[in-house]
């Protein structure tokens, strides 16, 4: 049985239904990412799991124990659920030292003083905070604060760790390091972790399972590769990856692929749902898969270059056809006025 099972959560703020039946589960040693645009209810869902928001319907099971059961009016308060939670703001108590912050959960569990010292030491060592135990949170850098927050939630060894955008307050370089560190830590410590993020790159990189939320319901759940390569809805296809959307009429369909015509710009891609010629359709193209083709061939379109920009590693060119524009990356400069653009059909989805 998975360590954390969340089923059919419904939650209202006043009259507004924020969660409309969200379900997911996480196994031991795995990380699930709750991903979605702002307002999709991902943080609310995480807070409901923690017991900080009150759902009116649904079930939550932690390590085989029911902590929420809408039908039986069971709603355990946060302090009884025994979970670890890392807040976006870290929420370190400013009046306590790092040691006292980390030790708090153990003190509440009436652990002996020597044991507390040992456990805090261990977890601080693991997180590289050994020498900072007597500091106050205000004396730490952002990255250190984040690690204290994680240490605090790990110290009392909860089976499930919940993290609310833990990396969003770090600068870009630190974020990459922290991401790798977090993934390693959770796998090694054998926790089940749920991480909320609005950053798809982060979700793709860190998660074993991605739970994509849209408007309080789960749009798609699966492995990162699943979501990236096999989107089932237009929302998923468009949300994951850096895309361009083209709308037009389906002119050809069959064999799992469809071609749509958008005022002269023809693109072929996988059908996300059955399509017939004559229907309206939308194509989602992965921007980073576009390239300059040496000559006109299958999956290519002749377009006009309107401007080019030097980005350092690469060049970015804006190509136009009619009212449509595409951005194409190349290794070197391009001075052609028109060029064939290849839009590979494996990287296009038609809905």
């Amino acid at each position, binding site marked *: 049985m998975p360590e954390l099972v969340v089923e059919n959560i419904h939650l209202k703020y006043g009259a507004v239904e924020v969660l409309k039946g969200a379900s997911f589960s996480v196994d031991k040693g795995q990380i699930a990412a709750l991903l979605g645009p702002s307002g999709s209810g991902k943080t609310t869902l995480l807070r409901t799991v923690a*017991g*900080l928001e009150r759902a009116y319907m649904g079930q939550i099971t932690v390590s085989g124990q029911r902590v929420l059961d809408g039908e039986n009016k069971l*709603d355990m*308060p946060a*302090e009884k659920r025994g979970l670890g939670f890392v807040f976006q703001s870290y929420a370190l*108590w*400013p*009046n306590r030292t790092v040691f006292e912050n980390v030790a708090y959960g153990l003190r509440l569990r009436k652990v002996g003083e020597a044991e507390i010292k040992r456990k805090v030491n261990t977890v601080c060592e693991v997180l590289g905070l050994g020498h900072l135990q007597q500091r106050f949170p205000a004396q730490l850098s952002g990255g250190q604060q984040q690690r204290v927050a994680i240490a605090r*939630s790990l110290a009392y060894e909860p089976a499930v760790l919940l993290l609310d955008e833990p990396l969003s307050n770090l600068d870009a370089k630190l974020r990459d390091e922290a991401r790798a560190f977090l993934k390693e830590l959770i796998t090694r410590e054998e926790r089940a972790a749920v991480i909320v993020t609005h950053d798809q790159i982060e979700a793709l990189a860190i998660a074993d399972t991605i739970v994509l939320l849209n408007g309080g319901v789960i749009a798609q759940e699966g492995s990162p590769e699943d979501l990236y390569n096999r989107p089932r809805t237009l929302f998923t296809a468009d949300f994951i990856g850096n895309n361009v959307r083209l709308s037009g009429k389906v002119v050809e369909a069959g064999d799992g692929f469809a071609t749509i015509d958008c005022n002269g710009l023809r693109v072929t891609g996988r059908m996300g749902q059955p399509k017939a010629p004559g229907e309206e359709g939308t194509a989602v193209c992965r921007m980073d898969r576009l390239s300059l083709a040496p000559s006109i061939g299958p999956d290519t379109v002749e377009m006009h270059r309107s401007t080019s920009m030097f980005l350092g590693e690469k060049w970015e060119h804006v190509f136009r056809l009619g009212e449509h524009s595409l951005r194409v990356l190349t290794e070197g400069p391009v001075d052609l006025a028109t060029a064939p653009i290849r839009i590979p059909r494996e990287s296009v989805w038609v809905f």
Partner: protein
Amino acid sequence: MRNDFWRTGVVLAAALFILAPVGLIVWQSFLTDAFFSVRAKSTVDTYGFVLSDSGFWSALKNTVILSIGMVLFAVPLGSLLAFLMVRTDMPGRKWIEPAIFLPLFMSPMVLAFGYIVSIGPSGFWSVWWERLFGAVPFWNVYSMPMLVVVVALTHVPHVYIYVSTALRTVPSDLEEAARVAGGSPLTVATKVTLPLVWPSIAVSAVLVAFLGFELFGLPYVLGDQDGRLVLATYLYKFNTLLGRPAYQMMAVVVIFIMLITLPLVILQRRMLKSAQRYSTIGGKATRSHLVPLGKWKWVAFAGVLVWLYAVVLLPLSGVALRSVVTTWGPLVAIRDVLTLDNYHKLADLPLIRRSIVNTLLLAFVGGFASLCVYALIGLASHRSRSESTKVLDFLVLLPRAMPGIVAGLVVFWIFLFVPVLKPWVASLGAMWVAYTLVWLPFGLRLVSNSFSQVGRELEEAAHVTGAGQARVAKDVILPLAKHGLLAAWLLSFLLYAREYSTGIFLMGQGNEVMGTMLVSLWNGGNIDVASSLAVVNTIVIAGGIALALRLGVRLDA
């Protein structure tokens, strides 16, 4: 599953604490005699009696005049003062600021004494005026216009607090935009700044109007001699007027007072909420650019000094001088009558000595105890979305609408009414209960404000770590709200040390406090001792203010 019973329990207890007095008043108002009397029968005649009493109507008229007078004078003056202090380069702003708060915390009884001994018929300044100009002064301290001027001037700080707070939140780039667009400083002030603070000015106007109905000390001392009553003094008269206290009459008067004050309080709350909605708080503190007044700044400065002289120096110099002379009159030279006897008497008279000790005890220990009560209620409603908290939020308007003298009266009744409490009716404990009731809305607001400044996630972090509500309060909320709570304690100290009207009906053998002692010394005509006690009272309060400023406590909470 979630344990919210204690919250409901605390809220219910608070509701009982608020509603019991109100219920008792209503019940008493429909009886023919005191509620504990066996002869008491139910009746509505008392209402008719009060309504047909010309004294009631004249008291009501005077109160309305005072209230309107306060709005007409105090609101423009307070707003102007706020503008000068916050938005202009008027000199001396730094040291004027604390001086503005002095009239706010000074006992109205002290102020009233001060005016009598300074500019009364044989007051110091009157006598000096006569010696200087050889004519009787043109003013009469006991006249109605004088009373209006005095109450209006002493309530300028109330307006100042609201308007200056609002002015500080107006980002100066709004004004700068208008200046760049070609507006002169005056145009900008009237066309840009003023409209932005209008809501706060309106709120302060309602507040001042409401305070007009609460007035007791100033009209009691300055108006009583001519038999000019206001509602609060009219109420007080019923204690002795008919030979024995006419509780049913008093209850009816209280109901009439609250029928006026309650709508004002509700109105003020509404306006305050919408004013907050329109406030332009941006989060970043912009350094405001001051409007240069040119040579007018000295005119403004002089104006503020005249006001400060009128509300602080004039009355205080009076009581201070009066406290060190044996007697004073037209033919007396100061050096012949100088004495410290009045201060010796403070120590010698057990009654007075006790009142000083009691006041300090009540203000310091009692203030802390009240703070604990407020903190408990505050914790019960903290981050609670339950209906009972919303009800409580509304219920606290009732004590807010209750003038101190009324709260003292009903607590007195409650102690008479409840058999277990009866032996304690004239104790310091009863006094404390009344004080706690009177300042409940204010204290609760202070406490809730400091609680809500504790980050929500800091509390939630403790919850998920495994702490129940009590532990979260003890380990997170209270330690982090410490500074705000300390400030609230200090403010209660100041308010309790100043309080005089609440204890009037509760005062008995042994629980005298300075404020009520001043009232009874005035009743007994004992001006010498009253003056020295007034000086001591003012010193205690000034000490409190100095400590507050030292600790960085904002007095305009």
